[in-house]
């Protein structure tokens, strides 16, 4: 049986913590576990239960738990922050950030190293809340929570405005007084919430969500989210993500005025309108009756003036039309017609006369022509005709006998003759007689 390299009688437990004094005096070797226990014991006795250590974060890794080192120019200290503590930190840890870590120092047997078991982390330089605010702003900005395009316009004449604030706060009184001064026709509806403390953020978010879902049917046109001044911690509820999310979802326009003019909260950045003070929020949202009445008076004045001008212009047109010479002396309207009529009648008369004259001339010409063909004119040209004793026209020699008295009619008178011969020998053939008959007819035409 091999001998143990240390004295095994008495203290059989190798992990049992040997007394520091005994260790110093004894040459007996210790197990690693004993040393670890020894170190833990020494640390527990020598160091306070809680230390606050300032240093720069390096080698940061976040798994379920956070692991990192704190360092300064000369030294490094391993740190672990368990998930339960990490969840309460409120800002994102990163390499290079200087922090104050609060926790206890202990010896981690398995790796044989000292570790700081971190319970609380605070950033140095800028406060934890400030860093948290900045980081949340960055995140929400990337998600589009602050985009101007998504901001809803505020109604010009809200009938009902929900005021999400504390019943006891000064902010509510400011809103009420301002609203009453401007236009009492708008009803304010108080939605009482805590505005600071742990309950505030969830209460505010719930109020906004309830208004989002049920506000419109109740005739609520807009929301004022407000709180008076306070420290950054007091105002912190308005920097919580839940409130930002609720505001982002809210379909009603929200005007937010949190804290003093110099304070900026996430809620104000997400809201549709950021106002410096509760009073300003009320002024922004509730119309000023006097200003609107002034606007109405101006509109009324313009409407009446323009209508009067329009009526006057129309009346002037009627007047000037009535003054027109034609309407003044309607008979003048007939003058051109009358003139035209006269002209036409004159033209008609002269035309008719001319036609008459030409017809007369035609008749005269024809008469003359006809006259020229008459027997008297024939006689004038030197012709004559002879009458038988019975007074009828002598056409053939056979119609008289020798010894018959015949009368020859000349243009200027008559002369009587006695027939000596009738030229019997020259009796004509029947054919010739036909011809003679035709000649007779021609002759007759001469006299009829």
């Amino acid at each position, binding site marked *: 049986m091999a001998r143990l390299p240390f004295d095994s009688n008495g203290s059989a437990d190798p992990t049992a913590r040997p007394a520091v004094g005994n260790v110093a005096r004894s040459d007996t070797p210790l197990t690693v576990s004993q040393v670890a226990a020894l170190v833990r014991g020494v640390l527990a006795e020598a160091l306070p239960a809680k230390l606050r250590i300032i240093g720069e974060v390096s080698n940061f890794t976040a798994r379920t738990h956070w692991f990192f080192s704190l360092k300064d120019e000369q030294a490094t200290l391993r740190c672990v922050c368990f998930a339960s503590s990490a969840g309460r930190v409120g800002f994102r840890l990163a390499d290079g950030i200087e922090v104050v870590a609060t926790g206890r120092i202990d010896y981690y047997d398995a790796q044989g190293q000292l570790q700081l078991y971190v319970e609380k982390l605070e950033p140095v330089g800028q406060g934890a809340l400030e860093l948290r605010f900045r980081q949340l702003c960055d995140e929400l900005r990337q998600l589009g929570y602050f985009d101007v395009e998504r901001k809803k316009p505020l109604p010009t004449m809200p009938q009902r405005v929900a005021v999400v604030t504390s019943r006891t706060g000064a902010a509510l009184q400011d809103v009420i007084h301002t609203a009453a001064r401007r236009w009492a026709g708008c009803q304010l509806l108080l939605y009482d919430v805590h505005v600071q403390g742990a309950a505030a953020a969830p209460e505010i978010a719930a109020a906004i969500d309830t208004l989002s879902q049920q506000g419109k049917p109740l005739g609520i046109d807009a929301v004022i989210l407000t709180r008076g001044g306070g420290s950054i911690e007091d105002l912190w509820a308005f920097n919580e993500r839940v409130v930002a999310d609720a505001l982002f979802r809210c379909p009603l326009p929200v005007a937010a005025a949190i804290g003093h003019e110099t304070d900026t909260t996430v809620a104000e950045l997400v809201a549709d309108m950021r106002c410096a003070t509760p009073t300003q929020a009320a002024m922004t949202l509730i119309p000023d009756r006097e200003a609107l009445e002034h606007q109405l008076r101006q*509109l009324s004045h313009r409407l009446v003036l323009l209508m009067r001008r329009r009526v006057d212009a129309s009346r002037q047109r009627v007047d000037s039309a009535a003054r027109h010479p034609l309407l003044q002396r309607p008979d003048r309207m007939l003058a051109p017609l009358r003139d035209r009529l006269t002209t036409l009648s004159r033209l008609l008369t002269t035309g008719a006369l001319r036609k008459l004259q030409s017809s007369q001339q035609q008749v005269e010409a024809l008469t003359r022509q006809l006259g020229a063909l008459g027997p008297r004119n024939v006689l004038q040209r030197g012709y004559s005709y002879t009458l038988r004793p019975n007074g009828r026209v002598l056409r053939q020699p056979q119609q008289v006998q020798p010894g018959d008295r015949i009368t020859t009619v000349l243009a200027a008178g008559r002369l009587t003759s006695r027939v000596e011969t009738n030229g019997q020998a020259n009796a004509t053939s029947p054919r010739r007689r036909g011809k003679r008959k035709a000649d007779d007819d021609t002759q007759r035409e001469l006299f009829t």
Partner: protein
Amino acid sequence: MGKARTRDKPLKFEQAIEKVEAIIDQIDSGEVELEQCLTQYEAGVKLLNRCYSILSAAERKIAELTTDAQGKLKIVETSDRNDK
């Protein structure tokens, strides 16, 4: 309870104002017949009167919003509260 503001209203204030402005522009343009102008004018006067009556609405006291056990939002008129 939410009894106020029941009978509402053919045109909201700002819509009425916009309509009056449009009427004024029309009359001003001179492109509308006189008869139509007169009709428009009457409509404009009515709208303006409606705006005046909205402005002179009776003072409305502050009320309170609460949710019941089912989470239903209600308006509670606070006649006993004096928010001075």
